[in-house]
């Protein structure tokens, strides 16, 4: 049964990738790409990487919205093919060579592969955590996580820097045009459920697959749904509360990291007995900031429509 599932997945992944690459118009390409993301999430589940699967599915949904919006906004051109056939052929050849090389390497990989999994689990007790992935993200490699949230902030600033002059601190356009009645109904029904699931994902992240990133994406999606249905207007980007929300997550993370210099004496080290509490505070703050930043990236720069 599982072998069949794996075989189908292995077959469908390249097929879906080729479909997306060769789609006639942007819209079908995007839909193919979203399907590819879902298949990838399944593949991650089959590989036992549930955290990665959740992230893939969540981020895939958000990028799907973004790409569909871009596809509908883009002017359809008669000739979507770019680049000469020779260049395309060379790039395909290079990609095939890289894939073949990686396949050879994977086939010849040492078994069992050297891994830090045992070491990652060994210190869980000291951190009072049950999920080694969370320990990696918020203890062993916390600096990576801290700076990745800064990357998201840079991406948001990048999006804002594309605004027209003078109006960039105003509200962005509402996503999705006029809302149909089913969307409005969904926007009333889904968010309460989505928020509960997000809080659950965040809370279990300490001990089971899940965590701030997946939760943040879900909250962002719920917020976007409400905006799409027209139940709320998009916020003004210059608003003090919104700005504070964006900066709070990284600021709390950095503050707790710097406090580590005092007790126990190392940057991003947690005082004994306080590790779990500190990690939960960081995760909650990051979830709020990331949700806001991800939704604002999808919403795009301000268009100068001031709310009356």
């Amino acid at each position, binding site marked *: 049964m599982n072998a069949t599932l794996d075989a189908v997945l292995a077959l469908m992944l390249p097929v879906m990738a080729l479909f997306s690459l060769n789609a006639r118009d942007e819209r079908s390409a995007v839909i193919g790409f979203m399907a590819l993301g879902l298949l990838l999430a399944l593949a991650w589940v089959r590989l036992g990487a549930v955290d990665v699967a959740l992230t893939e599915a969540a981020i895939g949904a958000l990028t799907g919205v973004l790409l569909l919006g871009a596809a509908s906004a883009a002017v359809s051109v008669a000739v979507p093919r770019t680049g000469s056939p020779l260049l395309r052929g060379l790039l395909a050849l290079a990609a095939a060579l*890289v894939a073949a*090389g*990686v396949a*050879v*390497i*994977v086939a*010849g*990989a*040492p078994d069992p*592969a*050297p*891994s*830090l999994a045992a070491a*990652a689990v060994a*210190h869980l007790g*000291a951190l009072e955590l049950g999920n080694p992935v969370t320990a990696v993200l918020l*203890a*062993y*490699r*916390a*600096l*990576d996580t801290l*700076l*990745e949230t*800064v*990357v998201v*902030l*840079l*991406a948001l*600033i*990048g999006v*804002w*820097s*594309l*605004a*027209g*002059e*003078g109006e*960039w*601190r105003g509200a962005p356009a509402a996503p999705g045009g006029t809302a149909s009645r089913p969307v409005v109904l969904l926007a009333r029904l889904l968010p309460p459920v989505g928020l509960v699931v997000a809080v659950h994902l965040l809370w279990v992240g300490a001990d089971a697959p899940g965590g701030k990133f997946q939760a943040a994406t879900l909250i962002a999606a719920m917020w976007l749904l409400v905006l799409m249905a027209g139940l709320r207007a998009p916020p003004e980007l*210059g608003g*003090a509360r919104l*700005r*504070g929300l*964006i*900066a709070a997550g*990284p*600021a709390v993370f*950095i503050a707790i*990291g*710097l406090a*580590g*210099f005092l007790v*126990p*004496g*190392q*940057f*991003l*080290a*947690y005082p004994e007995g306080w590790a779990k509490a500190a990690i939960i505070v960081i995760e909650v703050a990051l979830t709020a900031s990331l949700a806001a930043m991800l939704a604002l990236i999808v919403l795009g720069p301000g268009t100068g429509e001031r709310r009356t």
Partner: protein
Amino acid sequence: MVGDALASSPGGYLLVLAVLVPVIGMLAMPVMGLLRVRHAASLAFATIAVGVAVVGAVGWRVVGSGEALVYGIGGWSPPLGLALRADGLSAVMMAMAALVIALVALYARPQFAAAETAPGGRRAFGFWALLMGLWSALNLAFVGEDLFNLFVALELLTFAAVPLVCLDGTAATLEAALRYLVFALVGSVLYLLGVAVLYARYGTLDIGLLHELAYPDFATHAAIALMIGGLMAKAALFPLHLWLPPAHAGAPAPASAVLSALVVKAPFFIIVRLWFDVLPGASHEAAARALAMLGAAAILVCSVVALRQARLKLMIAYSTVAQVGYLFLMFQLTIEPGVPAWATIGWTGGMLQLVSHALAKAAMFLAAGLIAEALGHDRIDELAGAGRAVPVSLFAFGLAGLSLMGLPPSGGFIAKLLLLSAATLSGAWWIAVVISVGGLLAAAYVTRVLKRAMAPPPEGIVTSPVARSRELAALALALCAVALGLVPLQPFDLLAIGRAGVALP
């Protein structure tokens, strides 16, 4: 917390601050209303003052102790945790970045002075926030010891650098930025693929540990080749340079200066780390020759293309691709039997080329920005009168040009002389020829500009005044490039500090 704890050096915390201080400055900008600050520039200058002090302290510690500075983050040590490490080379790179950022900021202040809510506020906010993000990324790239941590540095760098390109918001700069983004992301994917292969092979991504563990086999070589390939796209090594000229020429002048001087150097620096600190096996002559040949092609092709440009900023951008080519000659010129790479003159020459190009190119872009502002355009054929309108800028341009040509007195002269000697000593005559021809071509494209700009102004030319402080910032950078010419002509001890720790047994 861990038994075999990494011994952090006294003062190792400075490395954390070098990465974090710019991030804190950047983070304060979206909430400056809450902080009762009106100008992003004020926050940037406060950040730069602290950041420069931190980098100075790092340099002082490294030179004073003669050893690398090390810090284990969170009390964890590799392979499970992350370490930061600054040897002599890293300290030099950080000092270079701090110097360029500080002078570029002085130059940019009048240009991006608007308060957030004022007209022009978007550009000012974007410029200063992205500049701080970029500085943090550079410092992390110079002190990171973990290959995935370095990937995060590269991501920070990309997401700070790409929006800087299209700050003006025109369709052309937007297209250039998107092309840059595509090249940079493809480079990231290749790099990440190599990181995954190395982790699957050795169970660690720490450069120091990989140096001890790695053995020469197909998987290791393929992984490092993928990573270097990806980094080559980010460093704009010929023929993967196609994104660079429109991007660097389209950005506002201070952004161009930072992009050309610093941003392409970070991926090159990581290639150096991979090549000398991770790549196992004794000698890699074939691969070194391949990189050197691409570098040579960059020098020859892009210098000729630079010579044919009609726009000043595009010419300078093509010159960047050519000058990056010199860096890749280094891999061939550091092969000396029985001598560690960092004791060769090729090593000193390559690193000196990196630093002197950073200073000279930043000066050149800043000067070009002022020339364009004074004349209202940057068409090389119509530069007559620039010498009268902005003499200090033109002088800075000329001084920076000396370094690019490799004429004394300048850092570029010493760098190219060392590379030339290394080429001659190792019998790589073709490299010696390329270095000489490249110098002549650089002389041609620099003097072409100077000749036009020195010509008497045509009748009725209207020029706009520019701030003297901005001219002086460009001049200061050019003078620093010249001052590097005072470095003694021998393997430079500072660049070898902390290198013995990763010496081959």
